């Protein structure tokens, strides 16, 4: 499953690259991109664990930049 999520207050560009790196290392992630300019996280992960991976991904983002929020609907 591949889904795109909006992000809030993604203020530094190299943070985006670090988030990408961090999320890629998570189990179940097939592909990920964090776009600094559009403030969007595109996550592709195995269906069965998608929700779990997404939560972990959001955690990674907060870890890199504590202001940054992934909006999960």
């Amino acid at each position, binding site marked *: 499953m591949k889904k795109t999520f909006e992000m809030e*207050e993604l*203020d*530094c*560009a*190299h943070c985006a690259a670090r988030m990408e790196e961090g999320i890629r290392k998570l189990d179940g992630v097939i592909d990920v*991109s964090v776009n*600094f300019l*559009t403030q969007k996280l595109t996550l592709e992960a195995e269906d069965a664990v998608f929700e779990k991976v997404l939560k972990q991904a959001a955690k990674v983002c907060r870890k890199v930049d*504590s202001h940054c929020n992934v909006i999960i609907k």
Partner: protein
Amino acid sequence: MTKRQKRNLCRIIGGAVLLLSAFLLEHVWLADARLVLRMLLYLPAYFLVGYDVLWEAFSNILRGQVFDENFLMAIATVGALAVAFLPGAEAEFAEAVFVMIFYQTGELFQSVAVGKSRRSISALMDIRPETARVERAGEEAEVSPEEVAVGQVIVIRPGEKIPLDGCVLSGRSDLNTLALTGEAAPRAVEVGDTVVSGCTNLTGALRVRVEKPFSESTVSRILQLMENMGTRKSRSEQFITRFAKYYTPFVVIAALLVAFLPPLFSGNFGGSFAMWLSRALTFLVISCPCALVISVPLSFFGGIGGASRMGVLIKGSQDLEALSKTEIAVFDKTGTLTCGSFTVTDVFPVGVSREELVMLAAAAESESNHPIAKALHAAAGERSLPKPERVTEVAGRGIRAHVLGEEVAVGNLALMQEVGADAVSIPASGTVVFVARNGTYQGAVVISDTVKPGAAAAVRDLAACGVSRTVMLTGDRRETARQVAEQVGVTEWHAELLPIDKVHEVEVLLAAPHKGTLVFVGDGINDAPVLARADVGVAMGALGSDVAIEAADVVLMDDDPRKLARAIRHARRTLSIVRQNIVLALSVKGAVMLCAALGILGRWQMPLAIFADVGVAVIAILNAMRTLRQAK
């Protein structure tokens, strides 16, 4: 400004006031007080402005993340405060706090500038229709475009955006295609025409039968394309990402060396350590590659956004970069340099007027839907044609019919011989249609594909911006190809090619020594293999053509070939802005580090270091925003 930005602004102002009062207190009343007491004066200002940096730094260390910019800023400022306690050092408390304030101000500027750029870029892409007005049981209902099904009828009033691709059922109007094509001239539509989503309806209400669901409509496709833009990164961007990875550790190691090596070798470690440490601390401030990491992708993004405003969709920064290096431009002929539709280009009447000859031919062919018949109808104009009777098609030769009681034959030379008309062959490019009436030769009409009005100018423009070779490929006959090539002014041409031969020709061109890139321009129909083989595949006139949008790297939304040269100039301008930013950032950072190491900046070294960090980032961001504007 967002809430957080406003709060930070207040903190900066508050911090500045506290700093000023601390400075006055220290110098007026407490100049001889103990060092610790004097430092305590500055701490409120320092913590107010820098608490978040300190906190982030602290929690990052716990997580094992060093080399984070917060960490480096914290070390730099805490270090500057602490240096005072070393023997032989001057107290620089005010400087340390000032550095934090300056840093936060820079960060604030940067965040506002990024927000502004994001907004102006997304404004460019504001083509998404919010609602669709759908007809249900005779009533109009406003729904979101995603909910409209194929086959439903939508109503678009003047001033509204067309939400979905469809076919006009009733009404006539002019459409503004500016957002899609960059072309200001409105496009007229009437019953039976297809309309594409993203255009704005200008003059009259239209009823449109929806032909594609929203997810497959033009607007969605374009938006998808824009969203995926980031995935194809240019070499410059990849370079920056790699560079950023090594830059920070490198600067930090350099700082350590500056702090410890010279004092060790000076023989008087204790005496000179304080001085070298404060120089090393400036290194840490410069160690963030923000200016590059933000401004380079932003420049590309802005460049792609600016291009989309002139109706050129570029799929990724990689393609923008390749486009800027164009050396060879290869064109498909039909539909690219020529209009791709037949028109009457010459009339050779024998014993009758031009109008009568065209009228005869058009009338005989008036029930046919063949492209040639359509060209004849168009040439005959609005006049009502006499109805043909007893129409018979002569396979491979033409048509025979009775028009106004006279026997008319319209077709090739063989047909003329068949009816006994005395026709002579005419050397012309295109298709020659001979006309005979009652067995007497009446003349010939030449029908051909016409060269686009902008084609010659497009090739001239390309030559002017340094594209040394322009090549035309076509499956058409040599004679036709030669005439078009001469009219347009391409440097080379190859005719009578099958689609697979075109790929071969492009491969030959690619194999020959050349420095730049090869761009292939086609109309997106049948040339997907060539589009893929070229360094940059450009599909032209793609408004509404899905195949072309999929296959190409660059899509020209309308069919004006002059857009190619404009796109190349725009790409070059974007790349030169990228280079300016890289050079600016690296040279300012390098210069400040060198001067700090040599110790020639004195009290200014910290503020200058901050400028080299965030100041340069802000300048680079502002410079990057120039890519949004289009090259003329």
